[in-house]
């Protein structure tokens, strides 16, 4: 089978179409929406397999198909599709795991009123995720990346009537957006420097040698190479999306979503997008490696973050009681492993672990979903117990997943991929600290997984829900079995004996020695796994929990440590006190500026205008008008006085006339005129 790069767009387009169908289907059209989604995923899987065939025929090539999205001025914004083994392996994994989870959801979400909407969102997610994989442009990756975020927001908040789900959805979106802003800035910078965001474009792409030479040449302040700065900004996006320290806080809360969502998004695929992104831009991350006089290499930071996250996630997982939260922190920890692998220079090991992890973590989440579904949404492992006898298939498959995750030697895929990472860390010339962190996390992982299995499946039921649980229908168990088989077999393609995956991913044949230098490290890690399993068994398996309220053995042994771990080391509280406060403060300042300062100035101007008006009126009324009024009042008085002479009596007038005449005559006489 073959699929050219130019028809690669069909892979995300099919689920997108299904999402559109799901969005336009009324609530009643359950089978239409779910059928369309599942058929689309089957189609996407088929196309992905075909793409893998094409990619494996030219493992070293990057097959591209670029096109112009839109033109702006004389510029054009170009996007493209990219087919290489990385894309193809990831696409096969995403569509395969996705398909199984879609099928599982048929059973899990059967009773939900918004069944059609659920499949619409799932398809949207799958489309966006596959879009991230096949994109040949950082811009297109970013577009799909944000759509993935949207789908995740919608799915975490799927039970939006629950305030905790609504809050978790918002937290996930906001937290990842913080990282995405870094990614955006990195992208803008890259775009500005290179004028394109295409990864591969016949020699002009950003990941091609000429571009990398240019990027590693330029230095910015602080002795950092340009490529380092851009790479680290892009890494910010990966930190957010992949739940890396310090932005890991959203991932455990995201477990508020339905369990298939947790499996699909927050374990198998979406959170792996960050790892994928770094693997995709790996040439850029590597570009500063040959520079000696720089203050920091991009990958060193990646390795550090990865190591911290691996350790931190594993430690916190020990203190959780909610099944899904244990698995969530375990995911955080495993993603840390992948980042660690990227950081120490082995992106192939990271992708190998990503693929195996997708299978066994999806398996674990779906197993947890099966338990939760059977136990009427009881997720607290203290209130479960004894489910192993009641749910045999779930127990068996869950145990496979647990052993894969814990890294039980030889048979399970997780062992091989984890070994690859530890070997790469061992071979890292810069520091052995990541290796030490990884080894400690190995112990912790084995420990908390033993604890989880022992609490949930062994012992006696500790609640009504647990004692009445029954195995689920085949629509839910068959995907579990398939995933369990995958969790075992997938290891085979990447063992040191036959490093098929490693050779095909990078396009260069990998000799076995490069991933297996000797038995020393492997023996050490096997010992550590056994140590974790043993301690876990001693604490939780040997003496089984009696009732739901019995204290945790670890809490008895180390109360302070356990309380800190159970409180997730207080990250949420810390952020609420710092960034949350800062955010609120800024909002208060902005609002206050408006209300009091700008509003105050405006009010001040208005007040001054009013005051002037008042003053003017006073002047008019008391000054000018007053004068006029007084004068006219006088005049009126005079008139009144004068009008008193007008008696209306003609005789009076005549008399006056006569007197006046006499007076006049006298005056004239006395004056001597007459």
């Amino acid at each position: 089978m073959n699929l050219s790069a130019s028809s690669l767009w069909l892979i995300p387009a099919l689920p997108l179409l299904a999402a559109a169908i799901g969005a336009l289907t009324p609530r009643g059209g359950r089978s239409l929406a779910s059928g369309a989604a599942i058929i689309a995923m089957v189609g996407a899987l088929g196309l992905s397999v075909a793409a893998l065939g094409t990619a494996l025929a030219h493992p070293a090539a990057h097959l591209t198909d670029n096109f112009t999205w839109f033109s702006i001025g004389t510029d054009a914004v170009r996007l493209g599709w990219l087919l290489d083994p990385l894309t193809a392996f990831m696409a096969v994994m995403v569509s395969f795991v996705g398909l199984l989870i879609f099928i599982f959801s048929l059973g899990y979400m059967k009773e939900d009123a918004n069944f059609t909407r659920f499949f619409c969102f799932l398809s949207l997610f799958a489309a966006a995720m596959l879009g991230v994989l096949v994109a040949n442009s950082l811009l297109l990756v970013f577009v799909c990346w944000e759509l993935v975020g949207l789908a995740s927001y919608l799915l975490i908040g799927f039970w939006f009537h629950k305030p905790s789900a609504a809050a978790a959805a918002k937290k996930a979106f906001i937290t990842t957006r913080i990282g995405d802003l870094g990614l955006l800035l990195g992208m803008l910078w890259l775009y500005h420097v290179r004028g394109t965001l295409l990864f591969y474009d016949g020699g002009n792409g950003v990941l091609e040698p000429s571009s990398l030479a240019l990027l590693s040449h330029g230095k910015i302040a602080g002795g950092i190479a340009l490529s380092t700065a851009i790479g680290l900004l892009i890494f910010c996006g990966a930190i957010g999306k992949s739940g890396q320290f310090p932005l890991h806080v959203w991932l455990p809360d995201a477990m508020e979503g339905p369990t298939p969502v947790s499996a699909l998004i927050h374990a198998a695929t979406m959170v792996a997008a960050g790892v994928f992104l770094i693997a995709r831009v790996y040439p850029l991350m590597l570009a500063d490696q040959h520079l000696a006089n720089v203050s920091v290499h991009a990958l060193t930071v990646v390795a550090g973050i990865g190591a911290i996250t691996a350790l931190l996630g594993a430690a916190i997982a020990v203190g959780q009681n909610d099944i899904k939260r244990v698995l969530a922190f375990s995911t955080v920890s495993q993603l840390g492993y992948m980042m660690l692998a990227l950081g120490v220079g082995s992106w192939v090991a990271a992708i190998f672990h990503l693929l195996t992890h997708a299978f066994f973590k999806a398996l674990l989440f779906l197993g947890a979903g099966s338990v939760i579904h059977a136990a009427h949404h009881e997720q607290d492992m203290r209130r479960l117990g004894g489910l192993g006898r009641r749910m045999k298939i779930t127990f068996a498959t869950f145990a496979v997943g647990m052993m894969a995750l814990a890294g039980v030697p030889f048979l399970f895929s997780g062992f091989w991929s984890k070994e690859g990472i530890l070997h790469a860390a061992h071979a890292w010339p810069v520091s052995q600290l990541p290796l030490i962190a990884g080894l400690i996390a190995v112990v912790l992982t084995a420990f908390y997984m033993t604890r989880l299995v022992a609490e949930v499946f062994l012992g006696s039921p500790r609640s009504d829900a647990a004692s009445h649980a029954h195995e689920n229908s085949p629509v839910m168990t068959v995907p579990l079995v398939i995933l369990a088989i995958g969790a075992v077999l997938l290891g085979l393609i990447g063992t040191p004996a036959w490093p098929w995956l490693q050779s095909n991913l990078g396009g260069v044949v990998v000799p076995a020695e490069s991933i297996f230098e000797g038995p020393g490290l492997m023996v050490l890690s096997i010992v550590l796994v056994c140590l974790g399993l043993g301690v876990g068994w001693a604490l939780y398996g040997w003496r089984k929990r009696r009732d739901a309220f019995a204290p945790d053995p670890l809490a008895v042994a180390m109360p302070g440590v356990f309380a800190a771990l159970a409180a997730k080391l207080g990250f949420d509280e810390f952020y609420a006190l710092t960034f949350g406060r800062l955010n609120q403060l800024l909002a208060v300042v902005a609002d206050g500026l408006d209300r009091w300062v700008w509003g105050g100035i405006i009010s001040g101007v208005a007040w001054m205008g009013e005051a002037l008006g008042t003053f003017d009126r006073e002047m008019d009324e008391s000054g000018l008008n007053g004068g006029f009024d007084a004068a006219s009042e006088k005049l009126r008085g005079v008139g009144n006085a004068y009008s008193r002479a007008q008696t209306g009596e003609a005789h009076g007038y005549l008399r006056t006339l006569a007197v006046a005449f006499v007076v006049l005559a006298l005056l004239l006489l006395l004056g001597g005129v007459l």
Partner: protein
Amino acid sequence: MNMLQACLLLSSALFCIGLVTALSRSNTILVLLGIEIMLNAANLNFIAFWRFSPAGSAPATGVIFVLFSIAVAAAEAAVWLALVIALYRHQQNIRLQEATRLKG
């Protein structure tokens, strides 16, 4: 005593009679008659001064004055008779003391 002085004395007497009549009577018509008498006294003065002034110094001036005065007095009489009738209609008598509606 020449003729002029006699005329002036007569006109003064006439004026005084008219004045007294106008001031003392309350009947509007009689008051107006008094006023007419005063007018005639003035007319007599005009004629007298014209008649006894040196010849050629005031040709016909006095006569013209008097003619005008008589014409005006006639017109005036028509008006005041109308007024008196209106007054009578208004207050059922013609007592001048009671006609004070135009007081200020």
